[in-house]
Structure formats: structure tokens, C-alpha cells
């Protein structure tokens, strides 16, 4: 692998926005390729049945069609799917990879075809040795087909909108009746700690049950140690609910409040941000 190999490709738009692509690793690409290979084999297995039936009518024609059919299937599979599915084949979909233009532009049909036609060289002499070596030594992990077509293979970005209902802003928050506690928390909790708690809440469903209980217990213990919490404010609620309430008072405006929340970590000297409504 080259020393200058990049893991992430950043694109800055003329509007000043920056987005990035996380390059796919050779192992995930190999996994996608294996799935695609298996898919082509399975599809061919189905087509063989049709050609066998065709043999009953015309043996020669069926064999000729089978020879041409396999070539079209094995060569055209990736071309058609990558074009119709915006840079994905079945294998790439399963392992969450996508072919994109290296400059962030739309993938064109010609690019899709060229990167797949270059497989004739990438696959030489066997088992994609040329393509594998090219990908290994290329800064962006490109095989020869990708270099020619100006494409890269990236990890699929998260497409689902984040679930903000986890913060339960409209619900009762046991910390809100204690403004001095809220003020103290906003003063004492650092942005880094707040971010960690927010991420824990937003991703809570991804943890295993035992790990989830342990994580929120540790977080709750940490914040309780940071700021003395009146016993009534924490009575009868789980550690996870306590952390949710804490995030609620740090990040969200309370219901009915006409005053924006004071920024936590203000002591650290960070600035205010205004929003378009």
C-alpha cells in the first residue's frame, strides 16, 4: 500500500460546502465482488433451465444463445446494475458500497461502461491480480477501470434522517423545575461531554441491552458527580432517562420558554449561532 493513500476524499463545492467520501477498503470490495460473482452464477443457473427448454425446440440455436447469453450476462451485469442503481450492484448494496465520480459529479453511463470494460485488463492474469495491485498502489484505491473512468468506490453514506424524537423535547423533564441546576449543568458540562451524551441517546437502539445499561449508568454517574442533583429530580427515573433529561436541558429549549437556552460550555468562550426559521 502506498504511503500517501487517502481514506477520505473531500469535495468543496463552489458554494463553500464540503462533503466527503469514505473510500472503500479492498476487503469490502472483495466481499462485494464475491457476492456479485455468486449472483451471476445463480442467475446463470436460472437461465440454463430456459436454454435447456429451448434445446427441445432447436438444439443448435439454444446452445448458440447460451454461449452469447453467458457473455452478455457476465459482462453486462455490473454495467446495467451500476447504471440503474446509481453506482451499485447487488454485492455493493449488501456491503454498502457505491461507485461515484472522483470529482463528486454524476456518474455517467459511459463511465459505468468503461470501468467495467476495463475488467478485461484488471482481471489479468487471473483473480484480478492487475486490478488488485493497481488498487493497492493507487492513492484512492482505484483499479485500472476506475482510473480510466475517473471513478472511486466509496462506503455508502447514511441516508436516513437522524431521529430527533429520541430527545423527547415535548415531554416532562424532571430537571426543568430546577433552573439553578440547569444553569449549573450548562456551566459545568463541557461541549465534549455533552456531545458524548447526545450521541449515546441518539444511538441508544444500536447498543446491546447490557452495554446500554452500563453506558448510561456511567454517564449518569459522571454528570451527577459534576453537578449536585436534588434527589427529587432523579427519583424514579432510570439512568438513561436522566441522561435524556440532561440532554434536553442542554440542547433544547423548554416548552413554553421564550428564552433561548444558554450555551453550555460558555465558560470555554464559544460563540452563539443564529438560525434561519
Amino acid at each position: 500500500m502506498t504511503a500517501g493513500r487517502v481514506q477520505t476524499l473531500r469535495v468543496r463545492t463552489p458554494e463553500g460546502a464540503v462533503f466527503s467520501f469514505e473510500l472503500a477498503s479492498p476487503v469490502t470490495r472483495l466481499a462485494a465482488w464475491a457476492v456479485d460473482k455468486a449472483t451471476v452464477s445463480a442467475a446463470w443457473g436460472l437461465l440454463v433451465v430456459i436454454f435447456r427448454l429451448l434445446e427441445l425446440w432447436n438444439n443448435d440455436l439454444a446452445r448458440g444463445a447460451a454461449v452469447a447469453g453467458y457473455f452478455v450476462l457476465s459482462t453486462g451485469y455490473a454495467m446495467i446494475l451500476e447504471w440503474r442503481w446509481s453506482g451499485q450492484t447487488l454485492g455493493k448494496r449488501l456491503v454498502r458500497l457505491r461507485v461515484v465520480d472522483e470529482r463528486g459529479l454524476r456518474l455517467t453511463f459511459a463511465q459505468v461502461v468503461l470501468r467495467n470494460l476495463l475488467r478485461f485488463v484488471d482481471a489479468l492474469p487471473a483473480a484480478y491480480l492487475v486490478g488488485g495491485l493497481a488498487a493497492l498502489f493507487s492513492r484512492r484505491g482505484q483499479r485500472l477501470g476506475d482510473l480510466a473512468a475517473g471513478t472511486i468506490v466509496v462506503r455508502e453514506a447514511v441516508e436516513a434522517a437522524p431521529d430527533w424524537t429520541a430527545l423527547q423535547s415535548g415531554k416532562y423533564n424532571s430537571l426543568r423545575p430546577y433552573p439553578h441546576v440547569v444553569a449549573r449543568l450548562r456551566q459545568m458540562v463541557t461541549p465534549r461531554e455533552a456531545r458524548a451524551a447526545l450521541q449515546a441517546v441518539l444511538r441508544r437502539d444500536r447498543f446491546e441491552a447490557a452495554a446500554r445499561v452500563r453506558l448510561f449508568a456511567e454517564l449518569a454517574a459522571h454528570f451527577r458527580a459534576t453537578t449536585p442533583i436534588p434527589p427529587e429530580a432523579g427519583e424514579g427515573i432510570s439512568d438513561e432517562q436522566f441522561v435524556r433529561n440532561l440532554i434536553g436541558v442542554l440542547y433544547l429549549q423548554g416548552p413554553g420558554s421564550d428564552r433561548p437556552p444558554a450555551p453550555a460550555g460558555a465558560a470555554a468562550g464559544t460563540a452563539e449561532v443564529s438560525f434561519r426559521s
Partner: protein
Amino acid sequence: MIINLEHFVKAETPQWRRLDDVLQRMAADPWRRPALEEARELDRLYRRASADLARIATFSAEPDTRRYLENLVARAYAEIYSAPGERGRFRVRRWLAVELPQAFRRHVGLFWLAVTLTGVGAASGGLAMAFDPDAKPVLMPYSHLQESPAERVAQEESAREDRLSGHKATFSGQLMTHNTRVTLLVMALGITCGVGTVILVFYNGVILGAVIMDYLLGGQGVFLAGWLLPHGVVEIPAMLVGAQAGFVLAQALLGRGTRENLADRLRRATPDVVTLSFGAALLLVWAGVVESFLSQYHEPVIPYLAKIAFGLLEAVVLAYYFMRAGRRADRNGPLTEAASP
């Protein structure tokens, strides 16, 4: 700094969802070109999402939202900044009548380069065969070419039964796929800055020249013309068009005579490389049919004169097609939309 993320997300989510809808509609049909109103809306939503991304990027508390926005902006950016010519519905008739012959003519010099290399290879193979007939197994390492031309002609002309009977379509399929594979490899080797393409084209020429010389020295020139012309006048140009595509790719890689950067050169060359490759593959389908169903039949089944005349007619039609088809579109303005990025 901690901001009121919930208010921000609530206020902006309808716009993001709308942008997502527009992008999904566009992705559902990659050929579709958006209407003016849709394009305007896409532009407005993209700019707003970009601004939102710039805001949230300064506040890194919530990576999921940032990644979601990055993904939206990336998809919208790709749609907005890609050239409009890259989103045209593919039309077979137009591709055949205009785009393929135009692409051929745009790079006709590279076609003649492939012709020259084949010619030099053929001359080398022919001379080697003339001076050293014993080198035949080396020059033509194929078992079906090892017997003497006179013996083969005698066998073919005295055959009482159709040896391809019941196998013609299979043979045709094998010829098509084999020749297409070789031609696409010739094209793909353009990635070696054309070195691989040059070697394969020259080598094909050597074999061709050796075969021609072998039959001419054996006094079987008419048989050879009747055997090769019907499919060869399509098959050999198809391989040369494949080589031409490889040279277009190599030219873009080398970038001589242009100030464009490599990425721009490749992006501009890619449509022509693909068009020429598909054109070559299409010609090889026809050549495969002709070789199996016509070329393998000789006198007395089919007169040599008829086969030679058929081959010459194909050559004239093919030359006319590549040199003349789509010229009206040439005169009427800029090159095809699909070919101009």
C-alpha cells in the same frame, strides 16, 4: 457551543425531505432530464442545504445530521454540476445513425494508425512466411491452420456433407464472444498508454499476413478471398475500431497537445471510447453470423465469385457508413449531446 438543534432540524427538515424527493425522482430514471421548474427547485434546495451544511459543520455535536446533510448536498451537487449533455436518453437509432460514425470520424487518424500497425504486422508476417515457410507453426500457432492450403481446399471442395450442420448457431456464438473478448481486450489495453494495444494489433497483423502469404504461395488466392472476405471485411475493421478506441483512451492518458488536466481529458474521451467499443462489438455480431453461415461454405456449394462480391459489397457499405453517416448532424451544429461533455 451548543445550539438548539431540534429547532434547526425541525425548521429545515421539510426542505431536506423535498430535496431528497427531487433527487430520488431523478435517480429513478438516470436518462431523464428535469423540467425547468424542477431544475430551479433543485438549485434552490441545494443552495439551502449547502448553507445548512456549512452551519452544522461548524457545530460538530451531531455527526449523523451532518453526514445526512453531506449526503444530500453531494447528491444534489452531482446533479447540478454535471454537464447537461451527460443526461440524454439513449436512442438506438440516433446512436447508430449519428453518434457511432461521428465518433469514428472524430478519431479517424487513430483508426488509420491501427490500420498502419496491422499493415506493418501483416507485411512482417507475410515476409517471414515467404522467407521461412517452416516458421508456420510459430507464426500461426493454431491447429486448423497447419495443413497445407492445397490440401484444405481439396478437402473443402470435395466435402459431401455439411460439417457444421446442427452446430452453426453454436459456432456463430463462439465466434462472436471470442472475437468480442479479444477486441475489448485490445481496447482496454489502451490503459497501458496504448503499448498493449499496439502489440496486439501488430500481432494480429502478423497472423493475418502469414495466413495470406501461405495461401498465396500455395496458389489458393481465390479460395482465400472467398473464405476471408465475407466475414473479414467486417471482423478486421471491427478489431481496428476496438484498437482505435484503445488509442483514444491512450491519447487521453498521455494528453499530448492539450492543456486539460487528466481527469477532464478522460471524462471527455470516455463517451467516444465506449461508443467505439460498442460499435466494434456490434460489427462482430454480424461477422460471427456471416463466418458461421456463409464463410465456411465453398464451391461447389457457393461460387467463390458470389462470396467475394458479397464481401466487397459489405466493405463498400461499411466504408460508406463510417465515412458518410451522420454528416448532416455534423453540419447542423455542435457534436452530439451525448458525446460532448
